[in-house]
């Protein structure tokens, strides 16, 4: 078994998760506060990758990333960044694809905190940012962990989008899910089975780990 696709997948998942922690958590915070119709539309858009066929997402990304496209052309000429059939492109696609896995659980956890927690912090003179960092975020740690692990695992499992905009290039876009597909197509069922088992083992252990941790952890009275 060629381990390159496994490493590539882990790298993709790690980078995607890191990016989503940075942009997804503040986004969740923004969404958790007073709702407006505009926010509901944004939230629905964020949820879309959860339900939209990967082939539809892949198709639009292919069009957007294609060098024929103005923005992609400009990116390519200016920064020498090509998005289609490239690792940066996969990262961007994965960020979009896994966004709801980070945003939704964090958002609902924030909404489930009693409002009086933030209010108490305000009456102590603390601004919303301090309140978020010192009061709200520390009290949704289990949800944050769950969101992080599921985001990571879900990115490991990304397939359809990569199939369309990745192109199965070894070491660049040939992630494990594609390697399984490729091995099956090459009738190399031994490799397909090995990749599958590795992926299954990694994701299963992660999911189990989170579940058991969430069961046995010091339970906050808020959940």
């Amino acid at each position, binding site marked *: 078994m060629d381990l390159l696709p496994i490493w590539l997948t882990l790298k993709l998942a790690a980078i995607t998760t890191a990016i989503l922690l940075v942009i997804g958590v503040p986004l969740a915070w923004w969404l958790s506060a007073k709702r407006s119709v505009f926010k509901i539309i944004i939230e629905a858009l964020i949820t879309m990758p959860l339900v939209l066929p990967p082939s539809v997402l892949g198709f639009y990304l*292919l069009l957007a*990333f*294609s*060098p*024929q496209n103005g923005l*992609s052309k400009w990116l390519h000429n200016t920064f020498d960044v*090509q998005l*289609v*059939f*490239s690792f940066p492109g996969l990262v961007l696609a994965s960020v979009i694809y896994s966004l709801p896995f980070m945003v939704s659980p964090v958002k609902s956890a924030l909404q489930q905190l009693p409002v009086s927690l933030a209010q108490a912090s305000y009456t102590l003179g603390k601004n919303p940012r301090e309140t978020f960092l010192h009061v709200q975020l520390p009290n949704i740690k289990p949800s944050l962990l769950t969101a992080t692990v599921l985001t990571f695992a879900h990115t490991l499992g990304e397939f359809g989008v990569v199939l369309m905009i990745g*192109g*199965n*290039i*070894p070491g660049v876009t040939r992630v494990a899910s594609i390697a399984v597909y*490729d091995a*099956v*197509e*090459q*009738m190399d*069922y031994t490799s397909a089975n090995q990749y599958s088992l590795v992926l299954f083992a990694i994701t299963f252990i992660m999911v189990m780990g989170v579940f058991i941790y969430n069961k046995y952890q010091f339970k906050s009275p808020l959940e």
Partner: protein
Amino acid sequence: QTLKVAIAANLQPVMKALQSDFKKKTGITIDAISGSSGNLSNQIKNGAPYDIFMSADAAFPTMLYKQGFSQHQPVFYADGVLVICGINKTAVNNWPSAIQTVAVKKIAIGNPAIAPYGKVAKEALEKLNLFIKVQPKIVFGESISQVNTYITTGAVDAGFTTLSLIRDPSNKTKLNWALVDSKLYTPIRQAMILLRRAEGNKQAIRFYKYLTSSAAKAIFKSYGYHVN
């Protein structure tokens, strides 16, 4: 950076031999990216970073050439051979009547729109006036590779594929097969092009030339392809 060669799915078995032979001769490593000819053409159109495209027909490379993805006309490198193949004997012995029996539940062919081997399989069935009759049994493979998967896992009773599958020494599944009469389909004239980004890439050009060399021809031949 290694060379990236996009290959029509039917070439998968023979490519392994070509890669190792070329590596032995030149020390150059090649990454092969396999798919149906149409799928690969679509990827190339959208910016896939491939150096050479080896199609299962001439139409796709010609289209890419006309659209400016290459500065050179496509070049023929081999002619493919269509076979029908299955795990059980029943489906392939006297296949035109066998596939009409109830013993044959599913027949796989490549998607005619993107896989030239599927296109000729459909053509052969149509010539025999069988296509309409067996249509409810037909399943479409995304490429000839997927057809091979369906055959070797036994998901279908029979499938139309390439002779190189049978000649592939690494294929351990015992297969029963029969040639499809070459009069039933337009010759599968497989062509390739050197893509724009490989322009001036000495290694790419070297492999491109190698593919029409006598050494390569011998390998193609041993996998059942016709070369001249």
